[in-house]
């Protein structure tokens, strides 16, 4: 016979007002198996818990019922207390007689409340009789993290994790880390040069003994679960031996072939063997195979000839490396929407219509013009520039419905850079709203208008066309209610930020969710901003949606702290609410395997001594199982049960009803 103790809480007057807790205690004493009952003012208070512990010891109780508030409130508290007093925490159950009884039944005679409390408590008692002691699941944690994406968010996450003393592999698909931030000139609102603050971090990441850089690499396959991921990474062939290359640059010097530079967004050319930009990390060139005559038709080979350490290998092939990780941080960043969608702005047709990122390059001292603002068509310094905001953003018809968030700020920055670099130059900004929420942001945009004479026009542009070497902009200023025509020398489009091509494929490989714009979904938009539905996989930066550098960095750190917390112990404890298979009766029909939302159930075999397969049975992976119980209901032979919610427990409760 079990020895169960029932503790009825008055919760001050919260319960006692409509429930006769004393009577409940007395009635429950009559229930077989109950050896001790009492009611008390505040069970959750420390004296209350003390009382509970004492009773456990004195009465040698093996099961605890606390009839009090919702288990969502204090189940943990009472289970801890029970554990402290030496009984298994899962032998302690909480009956909800507050939220679902005393608070919703206002019968002052206490009749209704008392009857219901009795029933609920009795049901819980019967349930408890069937509770078997459970122990928390311990999952070993591989203390090594994978960071996907070498932009500022990824670098920040990698550095923080590495600083926390854990190994990190940082995977970047370009030949150098740095991401989009490496393209930027200055950064708002402080106006410090992007590269000056980014490059040191890039170098730090390269030199950190806990960080391994896999540049020019992509994630191919992801298996496993939190603490135990197995990831296949494709290391694309650079045709240059990373370990031996000294980064002298001779090969680039001598390479006779040129092609458009992706890093410079087509504003200039680069060699066929190249590093994306001078401060590339690692400073190892790669050969752009499709454009290399040597690789394509075995002509040239100049680079190999001049290479001192002889580290160029035209036969080099992609390598697939398999690594194991305990956690993954996804920081794959963003790209700009193709402007060609907006024909009325003439992008692609009119040379001097460029996008914001291209302007960043023009303004950047390391850019194609050495930081002088010169227009692409004829290299002249533009006397006037029109900036058009919300190109694709907030445009349900041709673009995306959301706001790209950073354009207002960087456009203000552009106007400043322009006025500083080109004296007497006039900038015009067509905007719908100036969204400058953020520390010192509003002051920043005001400065652009008041100090740097940016002419802000509230309205959109209808069309942009060429007329005798000028770029004609036909827009409107809704504040004065007039049409506006501007003879500009250059037009800059604040193009929408969109998710990267292939973001969905990666999400499917990782098993994380994404929205209709293929931005990744956080677990909870407010309370779990960097977690995903897949435990052990975290998000950082613009792969979740438009955000600026401070936010991305903050998220990188947030994700890192999650990872470090996970890595803080060798094992990860989980609630033992998982399914378990009865191997004897399993029919191996695999219905559970099909039904499981987490693919937590595997096909397993039972072998005889000779090692021959005797039969197939389902097997639950405790690490992956989340305890939803879908499999239990799906199993006809009742060969799966859910710990903590076993059929027996549920039936006992129903029978006590």
């Amino acid at each position: 016979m079990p020895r169960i103790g029932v503790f009825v809480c008055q919760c001050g007057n919260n319960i006692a007002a409509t429930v006769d807790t004393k009577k409940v205690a007395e009635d429950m004493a009559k229930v077989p198996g109950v050896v001790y009952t009492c009611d008390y003012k505040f069970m959750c208070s420390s004296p209350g818990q003390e009382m509970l512990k004492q009773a456990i010891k004195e009465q040698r109780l093996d099961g605890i019922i606390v009839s009090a508030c919702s288990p969502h409130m204090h189940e943990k508290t009472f289970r801890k207390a029970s554990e402290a007093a030496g009984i298994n925490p899962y032998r302690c159950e909480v009956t909800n007689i507050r939220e679902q009884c005393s608070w919703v039944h206002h019968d002052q005679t206490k009749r209704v409340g008392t009857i219901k409390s009795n029933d609920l408590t009795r049901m819980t008692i019967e349930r408890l009789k069937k509770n078997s002691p459970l122990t928390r699941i311990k999952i070993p944690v591989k203390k090594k993290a994978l960071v996907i994406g070498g932009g500022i968010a990824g670098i920040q996450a990698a550095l923080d994790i590495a600083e926390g003393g854990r190994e990190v592999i940082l995977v970047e698909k370009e030949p150098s880390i740095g991401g989009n931030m490496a393209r930027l000139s200055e950064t708002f609102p402080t106006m410090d040069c992007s590269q000056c603050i980014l490059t040191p971090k890039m170098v730090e990441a390269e030199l950190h003994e806990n960080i391994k850089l896999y540049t020019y690499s992509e994630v191919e396959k992801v298996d496993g679960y939190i603490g135990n991921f197995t990831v296949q990474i494709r290391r694309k062939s650079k045709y240059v031996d990373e370990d031996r290359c000294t980064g002298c640059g001779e090969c680039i010097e001598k390479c006779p072939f040129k092609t458009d530079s992706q890093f410079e967004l087509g504003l200039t050319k680069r060699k066929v063997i190249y590093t994306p930009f001078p401060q590339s990390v690692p400073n190892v060139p790669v050969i752009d195979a499709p454009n290399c005559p040597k690789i394509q038709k075995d002509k040239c080979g100049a680079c190999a000839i001049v290479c001192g350490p002889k580290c160029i290998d035209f036969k080099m092939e992609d390598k697939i490396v398999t690594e194991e990780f305990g956690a993954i941080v996804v920081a794959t960043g963003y790209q700009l929407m193709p402007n060609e969608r907006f024909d009325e702005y003439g992008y692609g047709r009119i040379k001097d219509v460029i996008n914001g990122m291209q302007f960043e390059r023009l303004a950047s001292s390391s850019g194609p013009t050495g930081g002088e603002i010169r227009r692409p068509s004829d290299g002249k310094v533009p006397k006037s520039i029109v900036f058009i905001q919300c190109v694709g953003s907030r445009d349900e018809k041709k673009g995306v419905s959301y706001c790209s968030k950073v354009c207002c700020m960087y456009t203000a920055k552009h106007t400043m850079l322009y006025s500083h670099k080109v004296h007497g130059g006039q900038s015009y900004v067509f905007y719908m709203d100036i969204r400058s929420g953020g520390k010192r942001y509003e002051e920043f945009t005001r400065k652009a208008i008041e100090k740097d004479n940016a002419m802000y026009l509230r309205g959109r542009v209808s069309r942009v066309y060429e007329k005798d070497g000028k770029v004609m902009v036909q827009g409107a200023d809704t504040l004065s209610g007039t049409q506006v025509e501007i003879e500009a020398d250059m037009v800059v489009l604040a193009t929408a930020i969109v998710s990267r091509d292939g973001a969905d494929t990666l999400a499917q490989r990782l098993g994380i969710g994404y929205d209709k714009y293929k931005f990744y979904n956080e677990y909870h938009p407010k309370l779990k901003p960097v977690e995903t539905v897949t435990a052990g996989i975290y998000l950082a930066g613009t792969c979740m949606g438009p955000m600026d550098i401070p936010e991305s960095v903050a998220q990188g750190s947030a994700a890192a702290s999650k990872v470090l917390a996970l890595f803080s112990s060798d094992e990860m404890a989980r609630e033992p609410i998982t399914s378990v298979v009865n191997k004897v009766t399993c029919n191996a029909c695999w219905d559970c395997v099909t039904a499981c939302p987490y693919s937590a159930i595997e096909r397993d075999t039972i072998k005889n001594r000779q090692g021959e397969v005797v039969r197939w049975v389902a097997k639950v992976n405790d690490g992956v199982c989340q305890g939803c119980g879908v499999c239990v209901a799906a199993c006809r032979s009742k060969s799966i049960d859910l710990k903590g919610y076993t059929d027996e427990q549920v039936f006992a409760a129903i029978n006590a009803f």
Partner: protein
Amino acid sequence: MKIPYYPGCTLNTVAKGLDTSARGAAEALGFEMAELSQWNCCGATFPLSTDNVMGLAAPAKVLSGARKEGDTLTTLCSVCYNVLKRTNKVIKDNREKRAVLNGFIEEDYDGSLNILHYLEVLRDKVGFAKVKEAVKRPLKGVKVGAYYGCMLLRPFEDIGIDNAERPTIFEDLLKALGATPVEFPDKIECCGAHLAMNNEAVVTKLSGNVMASATGVGAELIVTTCPLCQYNLEKSAPKVSQERPGFGAVPVVYFTQILGLALGQDVASLGFDKSVIDIMPLLKNKEII
């Protein structure tokens, strides 16, 4: 190849040139424009008010008639094209209105007709390559401004003949004819349309913009698909010349006329005589005739 053809009211009268030259060209290219045995005016404007189903009855009548003569229908006038194609879409997509309309016109038409502009026929059915082969009088060195206007392009969702912001179908044809199309910004802007009735000032300004924009980039000739555009442009030319110093008016003709010209049709048959600004000098000094 025989394609059912809807001329529309204007092409029967003031824009005869557009009609005859098109038929001639078709012949030269080996297909026949089979005029509908029976047709009525399309209404000349697609009613923008959602509750005006009556305004769709006329075009619906045309369409249901045409369906009996084939599964495609071609037309030349941009406005007819616009009205017919959009009405057809309504009948196809909107069950209620289909029912009402069929009630009006006592037919059972389902919108299964495929409406093609003559340009589309040339592009998709004949093929510009084949047109090129058929050219006998290449329009060497003629800088032509291809003027689309509104009705041929908008709204893109319903018409979709070509990119609404930067169409090329017209230029592609001109290239095939050996001419040199010039890219001018206002090629998709409005000529003033029906305001011709009571607001000449506006028409003069808009048509002026279009012509100036074309001549600004060196157009020696403007071609159009729409009788109203043609009318407005030509009619405004003198005033524009007064208002805008340095503006020189250029001939405004229908694309089918120079098509016929290039295909070697008898120049007299093309109806150039109808136009106010004479094209002959241009053709002569380019040694095309």
